């Protein structure tokens, strides 16, 4: 029997989920940050950066879609809010104080603050959208969030302050490998800890049975809105990283296809599996690029066709996604314990 998404071991400050290891991880990221761009080609570097951004997006969406069971289709909307706001902050600051560009420390500080501001703006939008719409269930919520994503896109399309349809260009390229993977590690860490806490139990109980959850005294609306707002925060941060990597923003980048891409990652990885989302995000980002030569060869954009095929095959073979609701470490543990129970394995 597969273990549940919440509360397997990981009780204390020990093990892989202890704060210590994550600080070490961030340290390693910054060590790599200095060398990596020289070691590999810019093309591969871009794939790695985009994979990191996708990890943030898919893990944060999993909090809403996987753990809380609320099917949101507006993740690109939150991403664009964060992206546009943080890009707007840095571009206007750089325009008014060009000398800041020469100071790397000031640049990093400004960038970090703009990312957090972008995240907070996305959270605020998530809260405003979530409060009325999270009373809806299933398909209805999906439609509302899909509509919200489109509304945000059209608003940006018609706002001249951020370039309207021309897009926002001339954004300073602040995003580095270190920045993306630090954010990704923080995202995974935060969402992991929230999911494996009393707050996470509330979310999972809403997914499992909302009526029973209410009957146990859970304020389900509040729980859903919180998950939604937290997911939106990290989507906003991812949007900021994305904007400062591409250096131009176009409302078209954040259409519903972008939301779907993230949903696909979540579903493929397993709704309610953080490690699944990480693996699927990396896998699909790489797959999309790996299929590029095929496009050049045939002259037809087969990428989405193959993409869909992968999904269909996946859904047939593993309907609950790569990891289902369990984590990668659970699977290893299960395998180990099974081996422990049948040391000889001679019966087979």
């Amino acid at each position: 029997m597969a273990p549940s998404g919440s509360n397997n071991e990981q009780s204390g400050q020990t093990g892989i989920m202890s704060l210590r290891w994550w600080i070490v991880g961030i340290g390693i990221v910054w060590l790599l940050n200095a060398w990596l761009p020289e070691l590999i080609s810019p093309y591969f570097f871009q794939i790695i950066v985009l994979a990191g951004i996708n990890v943030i997006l898919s893990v944060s969406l999993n909090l809403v879609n996987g753990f809380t069971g609320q099917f949101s289709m507006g993740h690109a909307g939150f991403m664009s809010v964060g992206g546009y706001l943080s890009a707007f902050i840095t571009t206007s600051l750089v325009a008014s104080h060009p000398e800041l560009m020469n100071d790397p420390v000031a640049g990093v500080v400004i960038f970090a603050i703009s990312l957090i501001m972008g995240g907070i703006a996305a959270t605020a939008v998530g809260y405003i959208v979530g409060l009325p719409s999270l009373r809806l269930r299933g398909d209805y919520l999906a439609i509302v969030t899909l509509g919200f994503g489109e509304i945000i896109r059209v608003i940006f399309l018609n706002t001249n302050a951020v370039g309207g349809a021309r897009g926002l260009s001339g954004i300073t390229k602040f995003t580095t490998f270190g920045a993306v993977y630090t954010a990704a590690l923080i995202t995974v860490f935060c969402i992991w800890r929230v999911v494996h806490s009393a707050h996470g139990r509330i979310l999972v109980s809403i997914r499992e049975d909302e009526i029973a959850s209410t009957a146990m005294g859970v304020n389900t609306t509040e729980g859903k809105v919180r998950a939604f707002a937290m997911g939106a925060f990290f989507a906003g941060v991812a949007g900021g990283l994305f904007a400062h990597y591409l250096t131009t923003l176009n409302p078209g980048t954040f259409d519903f296809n972008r939301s779907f891409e993230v949903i696909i990652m979540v579903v493929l990885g397993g709704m309610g599996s953080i490690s699944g989302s990480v693996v699927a995000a990396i896998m699909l980002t790489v797959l999309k690029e790996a299929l590029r030569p095929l496009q050049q060869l045939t002259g037809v954009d087969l990428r989405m066709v193959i993409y869909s095929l992968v999904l269909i095959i996946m859904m047939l073979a593993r309907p609950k996604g790569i990891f289902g609701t369990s984590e990668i470490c659970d699977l290893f543990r299960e395998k180990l314990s099974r081996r422990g129970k049948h040391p000889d394995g001679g019966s087979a």
Partner: protein
Amino acid sequence: MNTFALRVQNLSIVFGGLKAVTDLDLEIPKGSIFGLIGPNGAGKTTIFNMLTGVYTPTSGTIIHGQSGTSLGGLKPYEITRTGIARTFQNIRLFKNLTVLDNLLVAMDQNPTQKKFGLIPTLLRSKSLMTAEDAKKNDALNILKIFKLDGRAKEISSALPYGDQRRLEIARAIATGARTLLLDEPAAGMNAHETSSLMDTIRDIRATFNATVLLIEHDMKLVMGICERIAVLDYGVKIAEGIPSDIQKNPRVIEAYLGKAATSEHVKK
């Protein structure tokens, strides 16, 4: 302190043109085991849904003895936090969660539990971890009373039927509620499971000082453990009293079995 756990006055609910419950008066004495019976469609579950805030009554008041306040206008989760918890006719466990997690969800909402914000959750502060450990211990103690402690780590949907029913009651207790509304707790149970359920209900009343209001069709259970019984038919209370009186009450017999044929009918 009030002597009743729940007092219902003039409670009515109308769905469209259908009067599901009409002018119901009930007083559930504190610490009692109270049975609510009646034929199918009599409005028993509707009453539960009004008591727990799922339905808003068309008229009437519900007063909670523990706090002395009216439950009118409260949302279901707020009512649970005042100390009234329920189980469901068709079991509603958190199926993919472990037995322990099912209980912990309820315990998190227990008003006596300390709540932690986002920062201590992310940092796993010492006080949070101590509180979590204490919570787990309390949950295991409740499971022990329900003889489910050996199955704490199992996925709840894998439990045998009777255990699932018991877990649902345990979960209701874990919310901190001491007024329990049990909706057909013995439904689908065999005779052995039912008699063990009767012991469990008596046990929790004694251990937790709880008041139990239950809907049940199993007359052996109802007559065996209820101190008082109210009988409902077409949304109207037709009788209330101790079990032996209820068994003899002609209106109750009529509601269940129909009117007895008179001698004239037989002749024809």
